């Protein structure tokens, strides 16, 4: 009798992949995702390209760039949530992976300038300025989109793998891990500041002209990049939902809550941590590659420790261990930032600090948790 009352997940035979993927999000989440894609792939292009600028419905280039940029940040926040919210590992160096992806794609954009630079040389301007005569070896092949796309994925993955392997194998955890990641991104920033490193020193890369032969500032190009970012963000959300609902996700949550127990039932946490860590870094790399052509600049400032801390704040504000939380957090904080830095630029950091304290003290589940609490209260009184 008792085994019949047990509500085990139906252990069926073979279920088509499409159905399995469909079941990883709730109906409401699929609808929201559909609305989001319809807005960013249809409504925004139409309102930007076809509606005249005088109209009240025109979406300005500024708005598209701003929202596109924040979508890249949201992608980073989701990546951060995978490792922090679900894996319990707080990285304060995720800005590094974002910047690596950005720099990798920036190399392609720099080569795309061709002879249209200030010096009219085949070499990027900063190399002419440094009196370099030929491309350094690591710039070879960067005029090929395919090779650079591979670098965007491979460089953050490799850095994350090597660092993660040694850190996790040595069982470095908690605040020690956070501090080391912070030092890592700081060291990388100092390295990239040097002109000799070969990435444009403190100016980084800018003045991009074209991408795949198209004018990078053209409205159509901007709309395509915007739509692509929205697609990648949506795909990442679906993929992450599938991941955290898989047995892998449950093992990850178990490692977060009681790591030694996980080892005693025969799992080696190293592989699990490394997998989610590398995946998280690669997602940041992709976000960086989408960010650079939209914003038009990448410099070592992206690797500054404060940037990486801000990523953690987005996730904390939105709500950890819920996938929509980081997206909401990234949008809330960054929209507030773009308003503050125009209206009261000197108070932004104070506000950010205050926000972090309030969230830590009163909203441990972030805005998503607050929303759930309000819903529960409403349901309770009704």
């Amino acid at each position, binding site marked *: 009798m*008792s*085994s019949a009352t*047990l509500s085990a997940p139906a*252990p069926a035979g073979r279920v088509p992949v499409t159905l399995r993927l469909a079941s990883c999000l709730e109906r409401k989440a699929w609808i929201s995702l559909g609305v989001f894609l319809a807005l960013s792939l249809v409504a925004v292009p139409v309102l930007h390209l076809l509606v005249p600028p005088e109209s009240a419905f025109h979406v300005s280039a500024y708005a598209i760039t701003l929202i596109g940029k924040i979508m890249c940040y949201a992608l980073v926040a989701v990546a951060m949530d995978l490792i922090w919210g679900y894996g319990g590992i707080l990285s304060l160096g995720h800005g590094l992976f974002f910047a690596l992806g950005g720099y990798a794609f920036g190399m392609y954009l720099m080569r795309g300038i061709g002879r249209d630079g200030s010096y009219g040389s085949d070499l990027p301007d900063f190399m002419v300025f440094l009196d370099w005569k030929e491309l350094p070896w690591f710039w070879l092949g960067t005029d090929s989109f395919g090779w650079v796309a591979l670098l965007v994925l491979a460089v953050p993955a490799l850095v994350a793998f090597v660092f993660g392997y040694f850190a996790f194998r040595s069982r470095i955890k908690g605040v020690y891990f956070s501090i080391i990641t912070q030092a890592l991104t700081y060291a990388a920033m100092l390295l990239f500041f040097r002109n000799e490193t070969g990435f444009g020193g403190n100016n980084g890369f800018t003045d991009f002209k074209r991408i795949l032969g198209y004018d990078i500032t053209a409205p159509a190009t901007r709309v395509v990049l915007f739509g692509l970012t929205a697609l990648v963000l949506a795909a990442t959300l679906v993929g992450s939902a599938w991941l955290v609902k898989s047995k*892998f996700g449950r093992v990850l949550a178990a490692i977060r809550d009681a790591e030694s127990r996980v*080892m005693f039932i025969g799992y*080696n946490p190293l*592989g699990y941590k490394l997998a989610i860590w590398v995946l998280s870094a690669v997602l940041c790399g992709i976000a960086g590659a989408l960010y650079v052509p939209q914003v038009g600049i990448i410099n070592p400032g992206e690797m500054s420790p404060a940037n990486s801390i801000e990523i953690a704040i987005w996730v904390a504000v939105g709500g950890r261990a819920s996938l929509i939380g980081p997206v909401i957090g990234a949008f809330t904080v960054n929209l507030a930032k773009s308003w503050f830095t125009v209206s009261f630029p000197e108070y932004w950091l104070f506000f950010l600090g205050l926000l972090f304290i309030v969230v830590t003290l009163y909203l441990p589940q972030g805005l998503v948790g607050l929303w759930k609490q309000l819903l529960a209260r409403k349901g309770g009184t009704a």
Partner: protein
Amino acid sequence: MNTLVEERKQEWEGETQGLAHMLKPGELDLSHGVILYLEDISVSFDGFKALNKLNLAINTGELRCIIGPNGAGKTTMMDVITGKTRPDSGTAFFGQTLDLTRMSEPQIAHAGIGRKFQKPTVFEQLSAFENLELAMKTDKGVWASLLARLSREQGDKIAATLERIRLDKEADRPAGLLSHGQKQWLEIGMLLMQEPRLLLLDEPVAGMTDDETMRTAELFVSLAGQHSLVVVEHDMAFVEALGGKVTVLCEGSVLAEGDLATVQADPRVIEVYLGR
């Protein structure tokens, strides 16, 4: 020539003759009827000798109780067996061939040693069902977990274990919301899902009601034979209900060994327990 060797091999694999038998690397060898040997194990922490030339042998299918005053080295002994602590000297073998002092914690768990901790540690955010699912004996690599789907057979096995530990009605509750006794049972269930050959149970009935304690004793007695069990416990009523051989540890080594009545009559044991 070669065919002769092949023939001989098949002969050997069919039946062992005398003490000679084929060994497969990494597999538990119980040919001598002993599942765990600890010989002259010493462990010291900053000069404090937690274990002092400890000798212990557990037979296959045996139910053994370990008792002893606080600081006798019971938990350290479990740490050595499960690979959490490396001994300073001595040997620890699982069966005839597996050297526990050279294996990592997950390797030891895979080889067939399951451990229940003093404080129940279950995965609080996961449901009772999911706790058992994670513990289940299966491929525990990253890829396997990514693509894992529960088969009907595995689902039934989890359901059967839930019934055995009387948590079938709590299958979907987060483990963090279970009572203390239920958490203890859930952890025992997680051990059983691993199908271990040897179970190490550190104070399994701590915090349980008398009724729960007796039901736990029944469960353990029913497990003996099929599994080997090493139970560390202070509760004498529980030890009596288990009815197996008892080993008394004191200051890191074995003080006495035998059935409960014999051990309790031993003047040295009385000295240790009453002298403090």
